[in-house]
């Protein structure tokens, strides 16, 4: 189906829905690299006007990637709930934006429609929303998830403690973990990116983290972010709390990650059997990020933000405990600078929350992107206002294994302070009992006899 929009007697033509979506996307280098972005600023806004006129129901029949050739499209179509959609099926994309912003469209209403929304509808409306719209609507959603902690409640902000080490040194990882715990981090998960995918290394790291958690009686969960097949390999002999996997929004992207829906399901079922959670049994942890489909040459001419939103359909199927985009990690050929990274992160958070995911964010950048700590300060504050579920906690913001900058333990202190947010309730009680923070959330002075500082070498 073709789309048109006339500006000052000039008519722009868009040959199909995916072209219209791509041209309507706020500018970013990845779409330009793919050769699918608008040629001029005017064409972009014309596309946004045209997209605003598209009925939401069209997305149910016009598939951006064919049903026959892509299992993610099949998942999206087959899991669509017509009943949830019925209250909004008369709206256009432009009306949908207006409707989302209404005061009467509150959390209860959004909860009722979420299973009637497809990733493409949500991606489409995000393209005609300003940053403040993305924040305001995301803030209406409260998505709570549970394992040993309760993450995502209003007034709470959780942190994934990320104690990576370039050679997976156990004592190095333990040192960073203790440092992070002393700053109140680790209530989302203590999650290591291993430098190698060796099953033995991964298994030993899992055992080490589990031992620390049990010894200190920390109400949290651990995860080693190895490939899902490595985790499955280990799941019988090593203490696996959460099953991790990077996912994308097309079948081909996922196949470049060495996975498909069946493999994810295998991981999900294996972890569910373990019943290791205490306050809940949400067992999956997914990471996503705009640009992964283009990078795998698997985007089918669909813009990178829409591909990203489609990954959330994959995540949603497995009722995850944590999901985050690694927004600035991919590099400047996809998201060039602080402005593009900030915009993309707000889109990702909004789309995921509207679809009902417990969304966090790796607020981050690489050294060849045009961004710095000030951009990250802006982004974490904006996402904090949008009630993002969790952020990363990396020692001094500097990940010495992955060679990029994320948010730090100190950033966690900052966000909780200025946004008046507290850690997950179970974890907060532990921090108070250990004397790490006071009732106001401020760090207590710790002396060298503190239990945490005497973990090493034992």
């Amino acid at each position, binding site marked *: 189906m073709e789309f048109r929009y006339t500006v000052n007697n000039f008519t722009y033509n868009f040959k199909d829905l995916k072209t219209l979506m791509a041209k309507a996307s706020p500018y970013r*280098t990845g779409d*330009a*690299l793919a050769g699918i972005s608008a040629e001029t600023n005017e064409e972009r806004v014309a596309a946004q006007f045209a997209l605003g006129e598209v009925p939401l129901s069209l997305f149910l029949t016009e598939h951006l990637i064919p049903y026959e050739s892509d299992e993610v499209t099949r998942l999206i179509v087959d899991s669509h709930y017509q009943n949830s959609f019925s209250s909004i099926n008369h709206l256009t994309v432009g009306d949908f934006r207006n409707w989302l912003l209404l005061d009467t469209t509150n959390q209860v209403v959004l909860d009722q429609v979420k299973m009637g929304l497809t990733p493409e509808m949500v991606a489409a409306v995000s393209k005609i929303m300003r940053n403040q719209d993305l924040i305001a609507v995301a803030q209406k959603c409260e998505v709570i998830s549970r394992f040993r902690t309760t993450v995502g409640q209003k007034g709470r902000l959780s942190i994934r403690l990320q*104690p*990576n*080490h*370039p*050679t997976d*040194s156990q*004592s*190095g*990882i*333990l*040192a*960073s973990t*203790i*440092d992070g715990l*002393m*700053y109140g981090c680790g209530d989302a998960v203590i999650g290591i990116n291993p430098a190698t995918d060796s099953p033995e290394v991964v298994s030993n790291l899992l055992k080490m983290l589990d031992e620390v958690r049990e010894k200190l009686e920390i109400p949290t969960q651990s995860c080693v972010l190895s490939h899902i097949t490595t985790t499955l390999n280990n799941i019988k002999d090593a203490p696996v709390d959460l099953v991790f996997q990077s996912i994308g929004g097309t079948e081909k992207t996922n196949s470049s990650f060495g996975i498909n829906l069946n493999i994810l399901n295998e991981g999900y079922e294996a972890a569910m059997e373990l019943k290791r959670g205490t306050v809940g049994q949400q067992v999956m942890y997914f990471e996503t990020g705009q640009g992964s489909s283009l990078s795998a040459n698997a985007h089918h001419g669909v813009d990178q933000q829409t591909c990203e939103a489609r990954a959330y359909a994959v995540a949603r199927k497995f009722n995850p405990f944590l999901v985050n985009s690694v927004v600035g990690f991919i590099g*400047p*050929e996809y998201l*060039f600078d602080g402005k593009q990274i900030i915009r993309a992160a707000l889109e990702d958070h909004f789309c995921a929350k509207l679809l009902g995911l417990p969304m966090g964010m790796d607020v981050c950048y*690489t*050294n*060849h992107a045009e961004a*710095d*700590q000030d951009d990250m300060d802006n982004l974490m504050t904006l996402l904090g206002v949008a009630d993002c579920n969790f952020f990363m906690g990396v*020692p*001094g*913001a*500097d990940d*010495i294994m992955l*060679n990029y*900058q994320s948010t*730090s333990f*100190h950033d966690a*202190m*900052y966000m909780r*302070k200025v946004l008046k947010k507290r850690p997950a309730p179970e974890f907060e009680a532990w921090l108070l009992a250990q004397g790490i923070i006071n009732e106001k959330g*401020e*760090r207590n*002075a*710790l*002396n*060298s006899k*503190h239990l945490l*500082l005497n973990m*090493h070498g034992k």
Partner: protein
Amino acid sequence: MENKLIQTDPSELLKTQTNARIGLGNVGGALPTQQTLSLKLDHARAKDAVFSPLNIELLADALSEFQLPFFLLKSKAENKIEYLKRPDLGRRLEKHSLEILEKNNEKTDIVLVITDGLSADAVNTQVINVLKQLIPEWSKKHKIALALVENGRVAIADEIGERLGGKFTAIFIGERPGLSSPHSMGIYTTFQPKVGLTDESRNCISNIHPDGLSIPQAIRILNYYKEESYINQYSGFKLKLDLNLIEEQKNTPTIG
């Protein structure tokens, strides 16, 4: 600066276990001044490395001393910003450079390509040292040509190697700078180079810098990949690096 303003972290023992930025202390939860400026300094050095220019004059002088066929080339990326935005342009030669290669009649076996990548300074400071130890040995068995390329990505060696009819290429390229290692060089090797190959056809030696992989270690691995590529007549993921072979002579870290 007055230290009593800072709430210190009593974690001296922990700090010996990792190079991660731990035990930084805090002021009202935030980073102390010294720490926030150190992070800024390291980031500034990494950014400067990305935009550092190839020292063409110095490199060209040094390369011509090897008395081998030598080509000074450019990719299609006209400047660093375009290079960062369009990796596809950094993988191909611009028109004039293609013409230069067109004129070459000499037979070539191995092409050594030197390019800036994401840290020209990593290459400016290390590559000549590597080549001085490498070329005298390799030129006993092989016809070698040299190319110095501005704004090149790894795959540009495929086009250069193919145009010169080479059987094997090694490209020396500045890696994405880390905060602790802004001047790190990598080497990628390819057997039977041709346009369109992807990473699975290459072998990589990474992290070459004063605090990382040493130059003698890098050369030992490079020799191994070259020998194995000629024996097997392929390169890439199918060639597994025998770590024992590499480590037996010296007890330093290998590819990090």
